[in-house]
C-alpha cells in the first residue's frame, strides 16, 4: 500500500492572499496614503489650480506675454486651457469677484480665443500695467457707494448682451433709497447698486424696470468703473416706474419721474438711487 502524498493547502494560501491583500489595501489607502512632494502644477488640488490660473492671468495682465502665459498654463495639464480660463472668468464674474481678477481672467481667456461672459466689458483692455515705484499699495474701491456720490463721468454706451443668469441664491432687499434733484447731477436716472452684505458689488443681476405701457430688462456690472454691481436706466419724464431684481427682490414701486426743482430753482427730473443687499444676517457671499 502506497502512502498518499499530502495535497498542497491551496485553501490556506488563497485565504492568506485575500486577507493579506485586504490588509495591504487598508494600509495603503487609509493608514499610510500617498503623500506627494515636489509636484507639478498639474497635480495641484482643483482650488489651487484655480489660484494658479488666476496668477497666470494677472501676470499676463502685467507683461502681456501670451506665449509665456500659454507655457505656464501648459504645466497644469489641462486639455482645453482657453475654456478652463473662460469658465473661471465666468465664475468670477457671476460671483462678483474683484474687478481686477475678472478683468485678468477675461482678458487672458479672450487672448486664448475663448469668449467669456464679461468679454463685452473688458474686451481689449490688455495693457501691461507695471506700477514701478508704487510700493505703497493703492486702495481699491469696493465699498458701497455713499449716499451722495459725486457725479459719474459721461455715460458709456455698452450694449448689454449678457447671458440671463441669476448670480446669487440669496434674497435681496432694498436697504437704501435716495432721490437727487441737482443741477450738477445727471437727471432722470434710476441708479441701481447691488452688493453683498460686505459691500462688494454683484454683477450680472437681472433688473426689470416696468412702467405703464412698457418694460425693460438689463443687468448690473456693465459699468464696472462705477461699481461691479451698478446699473442704470434713463427715465422719461412724467412716468411712474417699478424696479425689480428678477427673482431676488420685491418690486420697488412708486419711482416717479415727475418734475422736481433743483437748488437753483430749475425744473429737472429726479434721479433715484436704489441700494440692494441681502437682509441683515443673511450671507451674500
Amino acid at each position: 500500500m502506497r502512502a498518499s502524498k499530502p495535497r498542497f493547502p491551496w485553501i490556506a494560501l488563497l485565504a492568506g492572499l485575500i486577507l493579506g491583500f485586504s490588509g495591504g489595501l487598508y494600509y495603503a489607502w487609509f493608514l499610510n496614503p500617498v503623500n506627494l512632494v515636489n509636484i507639478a502644477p498639474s497635480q495641484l488640488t482643483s482650488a489651487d489650480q484655480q489660484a494658479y490660473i488666476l496668477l497666470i492671468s494677472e501676470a499676463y495682465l502685467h507683461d502681456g506675454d501670451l506665449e509665456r502665459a500659454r507655457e505656464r498654463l501648459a504645466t497644469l495639464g489641462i486639455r482645453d486651457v482657453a475654456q478652463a480660463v473662460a469658465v473661471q472668468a465666468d465664475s468670477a464674474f457671476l460671483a462678483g469677484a474683484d474687478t481686477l481678477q475678472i478683468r485678468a481672467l477675461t482678458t487672458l481667456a479672450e487672448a486664448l480665443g475663448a469668449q467669456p461672459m464679461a468679454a463685452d466689458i473688458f474686451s481689449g483692455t490688455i495693457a501691461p500695467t507695471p506700477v514701478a515705484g508704487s510700493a505703497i499699495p493703492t486702495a481699491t474701491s469696493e465699498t458701497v457707494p455713499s449716499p451722495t456720490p459725486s457725479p459719474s463721468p459721461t455715460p458709456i454706451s455698452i450694449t448689454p448682451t449678457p447671458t440671463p443668469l441669476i448670480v446669487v441664491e440669496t434674497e435681496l432687499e432694498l436697504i437704501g433709497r435716495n432721490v437727487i434733484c441737482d443741477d450738477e447731477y445727471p437727471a432722470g436716472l434710476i441708479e441701481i447698486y447691488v452688493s453683498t452684505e460686505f459691500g462688494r458689488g454683484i454683477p450680472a443681476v437681472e433688473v426689470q424696470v416696468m412702467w405703464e405701457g412698457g418694460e425693460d430688462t438689463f443687468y448690473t456690472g456693465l459699468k464696472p468703473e462705477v461699481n461691479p454691481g451698478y446699473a442704470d436706466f434713463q427715465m422719461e419724464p412724467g412716468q411712474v416706474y417699478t424696479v425689480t431684481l428678477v427673482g431676488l427682490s420685491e418690486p420697488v414701486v412708486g419711482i416717479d419721474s415727475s418734475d422736481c426743482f433743483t437748488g437753483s430753482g430749475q425744473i429737472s427730473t429726479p434721479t433715484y438711487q436704489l441700494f440692494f443687499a441681502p437682509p441683515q444676517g443673511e450671507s451674500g457671499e
Partner: protein
Amino acid sequence: MIRRALLTLLIGLGLGALGGAVFGWLVPIQDVSAGLDKLHPTYKAEYTVMVGAAYAVDGDWDLAQARLGRLAEPDPAGYVVLLAEQYIASGRNPDDIRNLVRLAAHFGYTTPPMLPYLPPTVEPGS
C-alpha cells in the same frame, strides 16, 4: 499537515499584504493632489514670480502676502530675497527680477545686487 497549512497561510498573508499595499499606492482611492506648498522648487519660484507680477498690477500687499503664505515657506521674506538674488545671479528676465525685488523691498529687505532693480521711488526697507 496543519503546520504546513499554517505556513502556507502566513506566506499568503505576507504576499497578499505586499501586493495590496503596492496596489493601493499605485491606485489610490482618493484623488491624488496636493497644495501649493508641495510644489517642486522650480514651480514655487515661478509661482513667486507671478505673485510679484500680480502685486505690480494690483498693489495689494495683503493679497501678495497671503499668496506667498500658501507656499508654507518658514521665512517668506527670506525666501523671496534668496530667490531674487538667485535670479539676479543667473541673469534671468529683468522684469521677473524687478517683480521679485519689489516684493523683497516691501518685506523690508534690499541687498546691493537688488539696487539696480529697485523702482525709483521705493525706499529701501519701506
